[in-house]
C-alpha cells in the first residue's frame, strides 16, 4: 500500500478526542504525527461535539446502541463504548486487517459519502461473510447525516455461542 494512502487512512481515524490510547500512542510515534497535529488544530470543535447515535446489530439480532461524535469512525465508537466484539479492530484502523467488517443496508451503503478505496476493498476481500454492502468500520466517519444509522456485525463466534 502506498504510504500516502496509509497516512490518509490513518489520519482519518485520528480525529481528536475520540482516539483510543493505543492509537494515540501509535500516532505519536508514527510519521503521520505531523498530519495528526495539523488535523487537531483545524478541525471545527463545534461540529466535533455533535453526538451521533449508531445501532450495531449482532447476527443473533441483539441490538447495541451507542453514541459517537461527528468525526469518529465506527471503529472509534466501538472502542470508546467498550462494546464487546472479540477481535474487532485488530490493526487499530490502519487498513491492514478486516476485523472491523460491518454490513450496511443497501440504502445506507449508497448514501455513504466516500466510496471504498481499492485498499479497503482488498482487505474486505479477506473478510468473513463478505456482502456487496460490506465496509470496514475504521473507514466510515460519522457525520450528522448518519445519526440513527443501523449496521450489522457479521456472524462471529460471539453469536455462535448464544
Amino acid at each position: 500500500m502506498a504510504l500516502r494512502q496509509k497516512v490518509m487512512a490513518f489520519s482519518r481515524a485520528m480525529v481528536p478526542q475520540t482516539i483510543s490510547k493505543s492509537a494515540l500512542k501509535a500516532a505519536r510515534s508514527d510519521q503521520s504525527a505531523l498530519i495528526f497535529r495539523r488535523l487537531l488544530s483545524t478541525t471545527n470543535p463545534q461540529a466535533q461535539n455533535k453526538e451521533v447515535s449508531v445501532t450495531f446489530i449482532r447476527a443473533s439480532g441483539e441490538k447495541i446502541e451507542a453514541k459517537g461524535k461527528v468525526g469518529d469512525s465506527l471503529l472509534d465508537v466501538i472502542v470508546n463504548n467498550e462494546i464487546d466484539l472479540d477481535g474487532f479492530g485488530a490493526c487499530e484502523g490502519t487498513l491492514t486487517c478486516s476485523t472491523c467488517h460491518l454490513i450496511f443496508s443497501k440504502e445506507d451503503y449508497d448514501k455513504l459519502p466516500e466510496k471504498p478505496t481499492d485498499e479497503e476493498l482488498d482487505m474486505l476481500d479477506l473478510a468473513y461473510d463478505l456482502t456487496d454492502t460490506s465496509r470496514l468500520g475504521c473507514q466510515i466517519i460519522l457525520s450528522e447525516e448518519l445519526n440513527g444509522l443501523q449496521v450489522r456485525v457479521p456472524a462471529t463466534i460471539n453469536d455462535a455461542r448464544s
Partner: protein
Amino acid sequence: MSKSGVLLNSFRQFSSKNVTPKVCVVGAGPAGFYATQQILKVKPEAKVDILEKLPVPFGLVRFGVAPDHPEVKNVINTFDKIAKDDRVQFLGNVDVGKDVKIEELKNLYHAIVLTYGAEYDRTLNIPGENLNNVIAARNFVGWYNGIPCDKNLKIDLSGEDAVILGQGNVAIDIARILLSSVDRLKTTDITSHALEQLAESKVKRVWLIGRRGPLQAAFTIAELREMLKLPNCKTFWRPNDFTGIKDIVANLARPRKRLTELMLKSLDEAPHDKRNFDKEFHPIFLRGPTEFIGTSNIEKVKFSVNELEGEDLLKQTAKATDKFEDFPCNLAVRSIGYKSKLIDPNIPFDVKSGKIINSDGKVEKGLYAAGWVATGPMGIIISTMNNAFKVGQIVSIELDLSEDKGGYLDLKNLLNERGINVVDYHGWEKIDHEERKRGKSVGKPREKIVEISEMLKIALN
C-alpha cells in the same frame, strides 16, 4: 502453607465450584493469545499460563510479519493487555517436550491448548536441494526478522537473479524484501545483519514461480498491489499464462475476481509503464520445480512445463508435460509452506501433513490444539483468530473441574528445580525496552536482540 490454606485446599477437592480452572497454553503467538482471551471471557474465574520456547512472546507477529508491515503488528497491543491480566502468566524460555513433558502438564492443569505453530518448512525432495544458496523461506524470514537460530544464515546476494519457488504471501514478502531499496527498509525493525547484507545485494530480478496458474495463485490482493507499486521495480507477466482468463474473470467470486482483474490490468498496462526502474519482479505460472542444478552453488532451477486439469477452475491441479524450462539464478528460495514439529511423542501427530491430529481443536480429553499446529499453515491472522476463539470456547465449556490442580505455582517450582530460567512478562518488558532503546539510536522502532543468552541476561537481571 497456612492452616486456613490447608483447610481451603482440602475443601476444594470436595467442591468443584471452588476449583479455579487452570489452563496451560503452549506457544505465545496469535493462536495462544486469542485462545487465552476467549477462555478468560467464557470462564472469568480461570487462570491461564502461556508457555513459550523463546524468551520473547508474540510468535509470528514478531518473527513472521514483514518488517515493512508495522501496522499488522498493532495486534501486539491486544496481546499485551491479555498478558498483563492478573489471571495470566507468561512463562518464556520454557521448551515444552524438553523442559517439561505434556504428561506433567496434564497433571498440573485442567486443560492444555497447543498453539505452537509450524516451525519446520516443507521440502521439495528433488535433486540438488542441498546446494549452496538454496534457502528455505522459513530461514530467510527468520534471518530478516531476528529468529535466534537463523541469525547466522549463510546467504549470498552477489548474483542478479533470485528464484522463489511458491507464490504465497511469504514468497511475496521475500520478493519485496529482496527488491526493496535499503532506504525503504532501514527505518523498520529489520535485523541489522540482514540490512547490512541487503545494502550490498546485487539482486536485480526476482522470479516468483508457481506450479499452477493465475486463478490458483495463493498470494492475496493487498500483497500483490504493494508489489505493483513498489518504487524502482517493474512487474513483468507472461501473456501466455493468461490465455483464456479474460473470458471467465467476470464469473469469478469477488475476491478471486478482483485479484485476477488486478493481474490482468497490470499485464495490459506494463507496455505503457514508463516509470524508471532497475529492479524486476517476474511472476511465472505453470512451472513445477524438478531439479536444482549447480556444482557447489545453485546455478539454475529446472522446471517442468505444467498443464492444468480438473473441472473446478479454482481447484485445478498441475500436471507436468514432457517439456522443460530452466531458470538461471544465483539464489533459490523454497517457499512452499510450513509444517509443525512433534514436540512430545505423547501428542497424536500426522507426520505427513505436519499437524496435530484433532477434531475441531480437540485432541483428547483435556488436550486441545489451535492455530497452525492444528489447521495447517494457512491463512492470515484473522483465520487463526477465529480458529483460536472457537477452540478457546470449546476448552472452556469442556473443563473438568472435579479436582484441584497445582497450576502455575507447581509448574514454577518444577522448572526451578530443573534449573530452567523462566522469563516472565516483566522480563520480556525489559527486553522490549532495551530493543526500543537500541532502535532509537539508529532510527528504527526497535533493534531486535537475536542472541538468546543476551535476551536472558537482560530479562533475568
